[in-house]
């Protein structure tokens, strides 16, 4: 282990489906919370209180522990101008950092280009999941996207170890030839070779890794474990991304059971990840951003909640100054935006904070403007 300071790493955990912010960080002492949530409210004695006003949902106990250790920044009232209550468009806005119009490039895709302008490391960014989230997409930026780290690779359908080794050699030769001419062919060659190289390197991660931490068996926990495996293999990855399955937190009905189960899985995964990093002395170089596309309606619908706007996000890590940021939006009917929590800080302020203060990048060109940053990085 060298004493040299390691590159900072950003891990983004996308909580798809829009979690109910009001039952995540709960204003348990507010009579309006109790009025609006006759069935879904969490009783004050169960809330994991942060102060005399708000507290964590009981299923988030592992994250509350990290909070108590000063490692969790809770960003209250996060949102974006002219809230849209469509999952897809809203997620798009979070991905592209552009609420006004539809654009192609993702905010992290652009950040990756700044981090590795010549595409020298094929693993500067790694996504775990099916398909590349738009957040990571940018023209000319190569991102490894892995569905299953154990089986990831090119031509995985070819049976027999020797057959496959030989097939990969042929693949590599096919993509190395300067066949045809022109920029498109060159680009395809480079992409094919990068993908092969990335898969080659990534496939060594599980063998290199050993840990006393045991992650749960659900897919999300496994992907978080994969992030730990790849990060601890020192491939130079600066951005990791993974998501809960689409619509996971979309609790229009039967919210209490599914909501608690999800938060319990996610919180355990985050806490296991932190313990894993700590065991390997890698806890200072990693910061986690955890977000959802919007909040949910203040007034419950009897068994669940409908789409809303203002939400809450989390920044977690040893290098984070823990505490409450932003203001908890008022539940006064006159202060609501069509029945939803009114956001009070633009999500791009949090992005700018992470880009500038954590990743050391200029956020202005990536976010197309300047946003007020939080002082949440040590």
């Amino acid at each position, binding site marked *: 282990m060298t004493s040299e300071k390691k590159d900072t790493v950003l891990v983004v955990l996308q909580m798809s489906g829009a979690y109910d912010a009001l039952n995540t960080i709960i204003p348990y002492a507010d009579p309006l919370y109790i009025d609006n949530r006759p069935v879904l409210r969490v009783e004050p004695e169960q809330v994991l209180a942060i102060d005399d006003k708000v507290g964590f949902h009981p299923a988030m106990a592992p994250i509350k522990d990290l909070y108590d250790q000063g490692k969790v920044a809770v960003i209250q009232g996060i949102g974006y101008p002219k809230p849209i209550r*469509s*999952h*897809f*468009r809203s997620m*798009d806005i979070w991905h592209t950092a552009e609420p006004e*119009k*539809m*654009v*192609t490039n993702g905010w992290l895709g652009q950040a990756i280009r700044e981090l590795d302008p010549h595409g020298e490391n*094929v693993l500067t960014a790694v*996504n775990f999941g*099916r*398909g*590349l989230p*738009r957040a990571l*997409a940018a*023209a000319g*930026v*190569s*991102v*490894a*996207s892995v569905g299953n780290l154990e089986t990831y*690779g*090119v*031509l*995985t*359908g*070819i049976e027999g170890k020797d*057959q496959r080794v*030989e*097939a990969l050699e*042929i*693949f590599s*030769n*096919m*993509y190395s*030839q300067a*066949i*045809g001419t022109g*920029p*498109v*062919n060159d*680009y*395809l*060659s480079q*992409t*094919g070779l*990068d*993908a092969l190289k*990335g*898969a080659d390197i990534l496939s060594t991660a599980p063998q290199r890794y050993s840990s006393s931490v045991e992650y749960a068996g659900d897919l999300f926990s496994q992907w978080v474990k994969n992030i730990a495996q790849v990060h601890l293999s020192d491939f130079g990855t600066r951005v990791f991304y993974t998501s809960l399955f689409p619509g996971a937190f979309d609790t229009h009905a039967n919210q209490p059971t599914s909501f608690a189960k999800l938060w319990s899985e996610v919180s355990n995964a985050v806490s296991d990840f932190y313990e894993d990093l700590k065991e390997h002395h890698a806890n200072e170089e990693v910061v986690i951003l955890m977000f959802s596309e919007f909040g949910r309606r203040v007034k419950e619908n009897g068994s669940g909640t409908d789409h809303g706007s203002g939400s809450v996000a989390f920044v977690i890590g040893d290098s984070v100054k823990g505490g409450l940021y932003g203001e908890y939006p008022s539940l006064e009917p006159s202060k609501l935006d069509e029945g939803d929590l009114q956001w009070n800080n633009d999500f791009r302020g949090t992005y700018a904070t992470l880009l500038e203060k954590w990743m050391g990048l200029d956020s202005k060109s990536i976010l197309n403007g300047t946003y007020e940053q939080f002082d949440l990085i040590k």
Partner: protein
Amino acid sequence: MSDKDIALMAHLMRRAGFGAQYGELEARAAKGYEATVEELLNPEDHPNGLDLDLAERYFIEWNHFVRGVPEYFMWRMINSESQLEEKMVLFWHGILCTADSKTQSYITSYVELEMFRRCGMDSFRDMLVEISRDPAMVFFLDNCLNHKGAINENYGRELLELFSMGVGMDGQFNYTEDDVKECSRAFTGWTITNAIPAQPYGRYAAQFIFNPDDHDDDVKTFLGETGRFNGEDIVDIIVKQPATARFLSRHLYSYFVADDGQVPSWMDTPPQDPETIKMLEEEYFRSGYDIRSMLRVLFNSDAFKISRFSKVKSPIETVVGTMRLVGDWTSPKPGFEPIFDEMKHMGQEPFNPPSVEGWHTGKEWIDGGTLVQRINFIGDYVGNANQPGVQDIIESLGSDGAIISPEGLVNGCLRRLGHYELADETRDMLIDKASKWGKLRKGSEEFPGHVGHILQLIVAAKEYIYA
């Protein structure tokens, strides 16, 4: 019938459709190239795969009031015998695109696809009028918020910029900001009744209505002409412009002939094949804006016939083409969702374009993640000897116990995939690989595995990324 004829037919069917199996290529080549073009252009009585109401009885998770419309669209692309008709629906959806994230009413999106089927190869003038009245589009680009005395320019601008003329041509702007405003004024009162999105009124297809009380009937000046223009008058002026002929010709060329840069670059970058574009522009005016006539000229042109393998296949072309090649999903069964998800993972999902501009094409389809996804997906299918289309390929190579040379095996596979061609070095590598298996006996127990393996290697090659 020569290999050359079949190779050309394979090219036509990849471009004017989503590919075809070898038997169909032989039959069509026997009928003739021009006859096939005519049949594709005039798809009157062909089976479409399944009507939506029937499809929804088999795929019970589909319900066009809520979802299932993009899935059904994909089903039609795989199974419709009117292949060019479906290819044109995809063409128009890529240009006149709407996103479900905003419209949130699949029943209305379905109406839009049906309109593309009905009008996709007729007059471009009528298409522009239809799209201006299309409820999903009226909502998507906010023309329902475009009021007399308080215009919303969203639709008016995109009609000019993205649907008909483009920002500029040969380095010159095609219209001014004043033209955008005047165009928007002419479309005031073009609105819809019934709610999109669904809530809180429930799911109904929205209907177009013209509200004369909200229409600005005053004099307007648009592209140098002055009058009390309504929306249709604006369309009549648009279709007369040389820029419109150029814009539509370049779109058709890019979609059917060869990748030619992204649309925003067209103002300053001239067409790579100006002669073919000129020919299409002339046919546009000669035929009175008739899309079918332009397509006829295009498919029968030498430029088209020599353009094999000069386009990167889109994700939809890749997934649908693979299904048609291996003969899967020719009838309903459970589990369509993962097939539909494949094209999503490769970067293209109907009704979820990355922007109002639609999808960027050509090399932009390919990145590290999508390339691996594509190669593994096709490889898994062509390596599966249980798929009927793969069985056909194996049988076509022979089952008589005779010996086939390694070269014969590789060439046979290439031919059956639609006369693909590999660089000599690549082909030699595959022949070398096949020669290591010893005597290749047709009909032997190992034979299907060997064919599958060669097919997997071919579809992993760079050449197979192209259509």
